[in-house]
């Protein structure tokens, strides 16, 4: 027998109120369960001196049962003993009682822990759903009702799949169950579920298997964060960007084409002054387009939504092509010295991104180089899983006082503005964002005023993995 047993006689006062009782018999478990020794022949008030204050109904309960013969069962916390008991009181003879009891302190503690745990779970805004290994719901926190419209009693005992009505493709659920049940690993993913009213919502879900001592799955604990609103906002931002880019580009496209047609003389000869003015218009227009494209790129980079499609690239071809364009744009020939280590053949990169980086570094080198004896040196190599590129010019350099700011949005050093009034101040900011924030790479420089500048870039090879984004970055030259 695991229960405790006590047999006692109640002591009544003149009015017939029970005021004490004597332990006549107790079993072996009594001491084990209560911690009280040698109680036989003693009054309860002797053995647990504060029982009258800590549990005012304790003695009266024994009295009632002993008087009426009607059994009573109850849970009681006996503070002086710091224990919880479940008591069953019987009486077969007036004035006497039999008590059968269990120590339920541990269960009570677990229930309290559970209560604390539930309180904590109810206070978090994420949905918490606990299921058995077959996916039958055993617990949901308060957030679940708020998010899905299902009350706990509508959900507990049902299979979770039947509730959310599985809007994802079959392969998604097959993969999910494989991870959490077969592999017993945590599954994290984006999922769409259905609310009670049929509405779809998007959530980031993580499902963790809880294993028992034999490493079998005992429960699945799933935590969902509703991201429907965030996805909405992202989608709206993307749509706005597309719309803005389209609207912003339209007028300069028109200006560019009409100016071009006037400049070409196909509508009739133009005099020198007219040609000059048209050149100014065309150049300013081109600047505007470059700014728009840079701003669009920056927005996409900041939203993390640009795509990466690595391919085999011909770096030499990209550099030569860009240099040719820049030569004609700046109307000077520059000596390009290139040192391409054969290791770069293995570097697959997104050609769009590489083009943007080369455009920016080379055009800066051109813009800020002296009009004669201009040499630009390019080196590229792959080493230790990194791609290294450097572009060195012997131009105006970056004054020491400005060096800390060159990567700032819209910053232009004074000597740069003098040499080239047309710059946007966005190029270095943009490529730093792409390289550092987008690809986890580094960009740095060494420069001395009037003695040239060397810009260097390093990209981890792993950063050029296929990344589906919503849009490709725009060219800005």
């Amino acid at each position, binding site marked *: 027998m695991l229960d405790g047993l006590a047999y006692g006689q109640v002591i009544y006062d003149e009015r017939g109120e029970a005021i004490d009782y004597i332990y006549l018999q107790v079993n072996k478990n009594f001491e084990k369960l209560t911690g009280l020794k040698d109680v036989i022949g003693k009054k309860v008030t002797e053995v647990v001196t504060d029982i009258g204050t800590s549990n005012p109904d304790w003695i009266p309960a024994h009295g009632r049962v002993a008087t009426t013969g009607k059994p009573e069962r109850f849970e009681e916390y006996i503070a002086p003993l710091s224990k919880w008991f479940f008591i069953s009181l019987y009486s077969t003879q007036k004035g006497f009682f039999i008590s059968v009891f269990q120590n339920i302190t541990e269960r009570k503690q677990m229930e309290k822990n559970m209560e604390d745990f539930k309180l904590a779970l109810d206070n978090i805004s994420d949905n918490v759903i606990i299921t058995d290994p077959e996916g039958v719901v055993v617990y949901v926190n308060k957030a679940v009702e708020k998010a899905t419209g299902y009350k706990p009693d509508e959900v507990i005992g049902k299979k979770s799949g039947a509730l959310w009505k599985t809007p994802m493709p079959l392969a998604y659920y097959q993969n999910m169950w494989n991870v959490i049940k077969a592999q017993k690993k945590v599954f994290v993913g984006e999922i769409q579920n259905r609310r009670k009213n049929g509405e779809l919502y998007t959530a980031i879900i993580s499902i963790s298997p809880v294993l028992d001592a034999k490493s079998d799955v005992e429960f699945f604990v799933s935590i969902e964060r509703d991201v429907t609103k965030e996805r909405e906002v992202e989608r709206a931002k993307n749509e706005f960007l597309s719309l803005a880019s389209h609207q912003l580009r339209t007028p300069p496209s028109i200006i560019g084409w*009409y100016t071009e047609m006037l400049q*070409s003389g196909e509508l009739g000869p133009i005099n020198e002054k007219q040609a000059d003015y048209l050149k100014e218009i065309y150049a300013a227009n081109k600047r505007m387009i470059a700014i728009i494209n840079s701003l669009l790129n920056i927005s996409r980079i900041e939203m993390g939504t640009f795509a990466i499609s690595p391919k085999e690239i011909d770096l030499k071809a990209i550099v030569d092509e860009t240099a040719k364009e820049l030569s004609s744009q700046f109307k000077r020939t520059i000596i390009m010295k290139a040192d391409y280590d054969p290791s770069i053949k293995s570097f697959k990169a997104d050609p769009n991104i590489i083009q943007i980086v080369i455009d920016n570094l080379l055009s800066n080198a051109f813009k800020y180089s002296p009009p004669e004896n201009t040499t630009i040196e390019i080196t590229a190599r792959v080493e230790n899983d990194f791609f290294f590129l450097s572009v060195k010019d012997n131009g105006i350099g970056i004054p020491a006082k400005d060096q800390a700011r060159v990567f700032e949005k819209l910053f232009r050093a004074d000597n740069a503005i003098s040499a080239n009034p047309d710059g946007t101040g966005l190029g270095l900011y943009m490529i730093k964002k792409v390289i550092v924030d987008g690809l986890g790479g580094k960009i740095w420089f060494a420069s001395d005023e009037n003695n040239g500048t060397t810009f260097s870039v390093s990209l981890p090879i792993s950063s050029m993995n296929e990344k589906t984004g919503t849009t490709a970055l725009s060219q800005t030259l």
Partner: protein
Amino acid sequence: MDQILSDKKMLIAEDEPAMLSALTDKFKREGCVVVGAKDGEAALDLANKEKPDIILLDIIMPKMNGMDVLAAIRAGSSWGKNVPIVILTNVSPNEKIMGEVVKDEPSYYLIKSDWKLYEIVEKVQNCFRKPAV
């Protein structure tokens, strides 16, 4: 001047009047016979009626957008499958558009603000230099 575009029939689908004028004027000077459409439905109608030798297609247009027009032309007939189509737009390519480009194979996808008119003329000329596939 290269005569390759002489007498070629061109359909330009473009809802922005100034752009339609600029492109029409330019290609007329190159010798093309030009018809214009200001929205996607008109563009599709005109394409099927006139069966032009080359189409310049904007994307953002009223009534029907350029990518849907492209898909409809490509699916419509054997002429439609082969006619060179140059997408001329100011919308940067996104995943959805690229998927449709891969499927419907325009000859070029050009961002208007990035290209000079004479470069667009060159690209159109290229469409007639390529062997028909």
